[in-house]
């Protein structure tokens, strides 16, 4: 296996990781600040992808599509926070799971009602399509490099927002002691809606960006949601920094495991069987990683509370 292939696979892992981060950041903020398990986060990802496809299809502008994705997902997030989620903060986690699972079904069938059952078309804009040759002769799609850049930019932006702004102080305070910041005069319900909409917008952005290279279809959010939960458990629930590190770890483990495990089994098995075994074990690799991290650090890598 050549070094070019290995570098290419590391880039693939990074790209997958930063997209997972966009999903996981919202999920971890919502859990950290409000203590809410939001299974419908994947639906917001789907809303973003469909909004991008619809607006990009109507206007021809992918950028407008992405803006629409963030606006639509944020709006959907704010509305479900005010109408449904708000009633669940004091409820046990099982009730939250049940209600947000119902939201998944409502979003899926609602989307089908609006857009029909067939996948939508969404393609990469021409200016950033096709491969570019990186130093060392690696041909790599420009769009995937763009995804890495956008993901890193959002990560920095989120860090600045949380560490350097007044809203960020309130969010961090909300994570630590929600009664106290309510007592200090912060409108906690407005803060919750804001955080929920912010998380939703990030999920919507991820959906729009990833939708261009994948299939924009009903139910596209749920597989990503499961991995995003793995990410926040590894990173430590509530920690955005943990979500970032966890997302990169999961992205790299998943991609490199899928490539190297079958190669490893080929050393002592015939090709077809090695492929099947390697593929089966690599699909477990991120969960094995999660298990190891939890044994070593039961609250996750950056989890503060025990």
């Amino acid at each position, binding site marked *: 296996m050549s070094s070019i292939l290995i570098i290419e*696979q590391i880039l693939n892992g990074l790209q997958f990781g930063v997209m997972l981060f966009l999903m996981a950041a919202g999920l971890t903020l919502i859990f950290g600040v409000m203590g809410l398990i939001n299974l419908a986060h994947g639906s917001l990802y789907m809303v973003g992808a469909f909004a991008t496809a619809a607006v990009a299809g109507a206007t021809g502008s992918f950028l407008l599509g992405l803006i629409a994705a963030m606006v639509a997902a944020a709006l959907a997030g704010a509305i479900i926070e005010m109408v449904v989620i708000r009633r669940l903060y004091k409820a046990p986690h099982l009730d939250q799971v049940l209600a947000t699972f119902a939201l998944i079904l409502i979003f899926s069938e609602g989307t089908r009602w609006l857009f029909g*059952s067939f996948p*939508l078309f*969404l393609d990469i804009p021409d200016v950033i399509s096709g491969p570019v040759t990186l130093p060392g002769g690696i041909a790599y*799609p420009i769009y995937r490099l763009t995804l890495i850049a956008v993901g890193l930019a959002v990560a920095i932006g989120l860090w600045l927002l949380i560490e350097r702004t007044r809203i960020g102080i309130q969010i961090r305070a909300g994570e630590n002691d929600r009664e106290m910041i309510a007592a200090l005069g912060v409108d906690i319900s407005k803060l919750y809606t804001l955080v929920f909409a912010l998380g939703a917008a990030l999920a919507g952005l991820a959906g729009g960006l990833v939708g261009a290279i*994948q299939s924009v279809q009903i*139910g596209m959010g749920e597989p990503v949601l499961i991995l995003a939960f793995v990410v926040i458990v590894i990173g430590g629930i509530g920690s955005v920094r943990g979500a970032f590190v966890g997302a990169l770890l999961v992205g790299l483990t998943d991609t490199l495991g899928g490539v190297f495990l079958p190669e490893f089994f080929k050393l002592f098995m015939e090709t077809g069987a090695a492929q099947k075994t390697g593929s*089966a074990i690599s699909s477990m690799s991120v969960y094995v990683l999660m298990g190891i991290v939890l044994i070593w650090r039961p609250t996750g890598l950056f989890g503060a509370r025990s």
Partner: protein
Amino acid sequence: MNRFMVAVTAATLAATTVAADVKVGMITTLSGGGAGLGIDVRDGFMLAIAQSGRDDIEVVIEDDQRKPDIAVQLSDKMIQSERVDVMTGIIWSNLAMAVVPAAVNQNVFYLSPNAGPSPLAGKGCHQNYFNVAWQNDNLHEAAGAHANSAGYTNSFILAPNYPAGTDALTGYKRFFEGELAGEIYTQLGQTDYAAEIAQIRASDADSVFFFLPGGMGISFLKQYADSGIDLPVVGPAFSFDQGILQAVGDAALGVVNTSQWNKDIDNPTNAAFVETFEAEYGRLPSLYASQGFDTANLLLSALDKAEPSDADAFRDALRAAEFDSTRGDFAFGPNHHPVQTIYAREVIKEGDIFTNKIIGTALEAHSDAYAADCKM
């Protein structure tokens, strides 16, 4: 969907005045990720029933949500309380394996409009089970045969790691005479193929064969086109059907895929089917729709000759398959699976619509590898 609710309700209401002589139970996928396939099968089937003008056939349609447990519940309900004579509709092989053996053993006829798992074609075949579409391996075998005639000698092949994926690669390898540059099993439902595409780039393959049905195929083709690799791609029709092509867009143009049906097969039945389907539903039919349409016409042809209550006569009438198929000639082999021509098609653009055009024949009068194991 509502139109059919109305149609079904109308049929039910009619049943109170004119006794419905035949009851058909359709279990298919109408919600969730794979709904496009079930909707096409249902629409094709109901179009043929409507065109027949018969009001003594009642069709009960239920959504299996692509879940085997729900399909089994629906099947029990249809057989025990609805007392259907004939069942049809299932799209996915794992659901068919959960439902069909039990149903046919309770003296219900089952006509498969899509799924054709190998056990039901071989050792597990049954006299009441008829497959109107294909045995699962067929289109992949045809893809292997096409690769030979196109002069490919070194293929990189990939499919999801589940039974139909294994069948796909087995089918391709059964007919492909060249070498394999690589063989990859991906995860079922995988959406990102960057790692696999990098391996294709690093290999010395001269062609790529893939079986990635539905959304998986959309993702793969878009990412493959963007990677700048220009090796020719072949695959079965499942990643290039009419419902999917518009979502793939230019990335699919020129790709050769294998299918037992296409809208340009030249016979009057097919021309009328394509025209009336488009007029009725406002979209072009897919191969799934043609399979639903053929299934209903097979049923109608048998009903013209015998009642399902007379099981032996009805079975003989089904086996004779004397109906006008959208595929032209149609005949069953000894295991009640089609013996048919499989074509190579190419993806083209007609105006703004992406669709397929037949460019040649991949396999003539093709049966399946399991017929010899069937003792009926």
